[in-house]
């Protein structure tokens, strides 16, 4: 009993004079501060590329080729209105593509020709995964691209950003909001949805992190996220972050 007390760490402080104690406290504070700043520096250095919200992370526009319409003529409606809204089940990709770990196929890549192969049934889940972006490529490309866009319609700067940009464009396709929301309200509507995406690209969780105050808008953004899933598998370096912390989608009309 007594021997335990004499060895107890409390005695460390008791034995020292007051000056030593302050010294100890001072150095303790210094060491703490150093450790904290080191940790911050470490985290900063190893952080994912941050997203500057003012700057669009990716420019993936398709530029329509051909001669422009004579400016003296009246404009024509070039495209039929968007296809009717239908609940599409995720379409399986025609060919089970070999598992790529990096660089998902370019956005506007033409779908490969349909070929029947053995073992196609087994690849169902995988097809679903790779089929996610295939949904995108099958939609009509936006032909009214910006004049300064890249002719190939893909100028991905970095892999991580490209993934987020695709995420965004896929969700945008299902981002249907009711026309009944008045203009005055549209200006200030903002909703945030926190989503967690598994390594396979499945939507693990989606939670309304910040309501816009408008029920119609809130339900529209949640519907958009749910209908857009599944997504493509995230690139390797984003997998952990996306399945652990997820990503916050900030919606504006």
């Amino acid at each position: 009993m007594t021997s335990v007390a004499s060895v107890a760490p409390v005695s460390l402080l008791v034995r020292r004079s007051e000056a030593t104690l302050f010294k100890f406290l001072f150095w303790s504070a210094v060491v703490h501060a150093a450790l904290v700043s080191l940790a911050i520096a470490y985290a900063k250095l190893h952080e994912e590329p941050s997203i500057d919200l003012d700057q669009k992370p990716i420019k993936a526009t398709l530029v329509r080729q051909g001669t422009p319409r004579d400016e003296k003529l009246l404009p024509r409606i070039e495209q039929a209105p968007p296809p009717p809204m239908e609940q599409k089940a995720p379409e399986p990709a025609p060919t089970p593509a070999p598992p790529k770990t990096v660089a998902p196929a370019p956005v506007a890549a033409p779908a490969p020709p349909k070929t029947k192969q053995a073992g196609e049934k087994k690849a169902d889940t995988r097809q679903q995964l790779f089929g996610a972006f295939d949904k995108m490529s099958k939609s009509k490309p936006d032909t009214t691209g910006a004049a300064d866009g890249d002719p190939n319609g893909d100028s991905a700067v970095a892999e991580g950003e490209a993934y987020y940009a695709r995420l965004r464009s896929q969700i945008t396709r299902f981002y249907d909001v009711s026309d009944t929301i008045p203009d005055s309200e549209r200006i200030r509507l903002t909703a945030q949805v926190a989503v967690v995406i598994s390594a396979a690209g499945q939507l693990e969780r989606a939670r309304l992190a910040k309501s816009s105050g408008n029920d119609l808008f809130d339900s529209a953004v949640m519907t958009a996220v749910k209908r857009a899933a599944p997504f493509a598998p995230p690139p390797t370096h984003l997998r952990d972050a996306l399945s652990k912390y997820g990503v916050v989608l900030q919606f504006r009309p």
Partner: protein
Amino acid sequence: MIRILTLSLLLCPLAALAQAPVIEISGANFRPLPIAVPLPQALNDGARTVSPEFDDAFFFDCSAAGIFQVLDRKSYLADAREGFTASTITFSRWADVGAEALVKVQLSVDGRELRGEMRLFTVSSGKEELRLVHVVPLDQPRKLAHFFADALYKQFTREPGPFQSHLAFVRRAGKGKDVYLGDWDGKRAAPVAQGSINLLPVVGPQGDSVAFTSYRSGKPALYLQKAGGAATPLVTNGAMVTGASFSPDGRRIAYSMAQGEGAQLFVADAGGGNPQPLTDTPYFINSSPTWSPDGRRIAFVSNRAGTPQIYVLTVANPKDVRRLTFQGNYNQTPDWSPRGDLIAFTARDERNAFDLFTVNVESGKVTRLTQDQGNNQEPSFSPNGRLIVFNSNRTGASMLWVMTAEGQNQKMLPLEKGDYSTPDWGP
């Protein structure tokens, strides 16, 4: 010990920094709200008699509003005798057919009165958003329908609805042309001017009168007349007078009068007195004036540059004229949106088809509203500026149609077959 301390110290800031990135998503596809409008419930025999007429008007208002996608009644899964209160409605059945909103109406007749009650529900939450009771004379179920449709419109958009307003139009009758004034959908239309040739009607400031050009005295002159009333001559000085347009405050009237080889614009008091010329281009035609909602400017058509184009002048200083359209070589019948930003007009394109366009007053950007659907002409904005009525011969005869100001949701007005033209949608 120190190791544990160091480690925990290291981990604390890391956890705080492990923040999810934020991706901003904008560019929503605005689409009409899927809404279910089941048949009204008639509570007694009298109500059953007027119910179909009420339903006709109400269903058409909702379909034409442009902000709703009225779901097909055949798809409804709910029990037809389902209740009228939130607790007695099975909302999951409405959600199953894709409805996001549900509007229910109950009708009952009491003596000479028709009583209607409307309730609006949000399907996802089952919440009652609006409850409204209104009583009209028994013979006016359409009035009740338009009242409810306006209330519904306002509930969602916080803007006044356009359904209790009035429409004037011309219908061919034998060799003559008659002017009619009716509800916004052309129903309950009464002839204002019959016999002779009556043209270019415009609804008066109170919605109960019509100004029009008529040949009744042999020479074309401008008249003002209430339905069932007598015609008051506004401008009758012998020359061809066309295209009357009331200022938004109803105090002044602008029109075009033929002079020599050309035609000039004038502005006068609403009664036709004190006419002042606005244009002075003796060899050119200036016609079809339309006021800006603030009453300060007038848009009109002039061929002063060779082809008919849309121009804008300032009423206080008519010398201040600006050409607005530079595309196309035949632009006419402008109508200034009550919202102020757009002017709708008819243009003939390079395929010689007449179609409707809008031009942004400030930027001059021209947007096409109709295409490849026969000839579409003579647009007129609803009083709230959200809808446009026009005439189209896409089905053969020239009928009246309505669409949104963006050219979406084009629907034919439920009029009997005939030859209709120059609709004007007024208060």
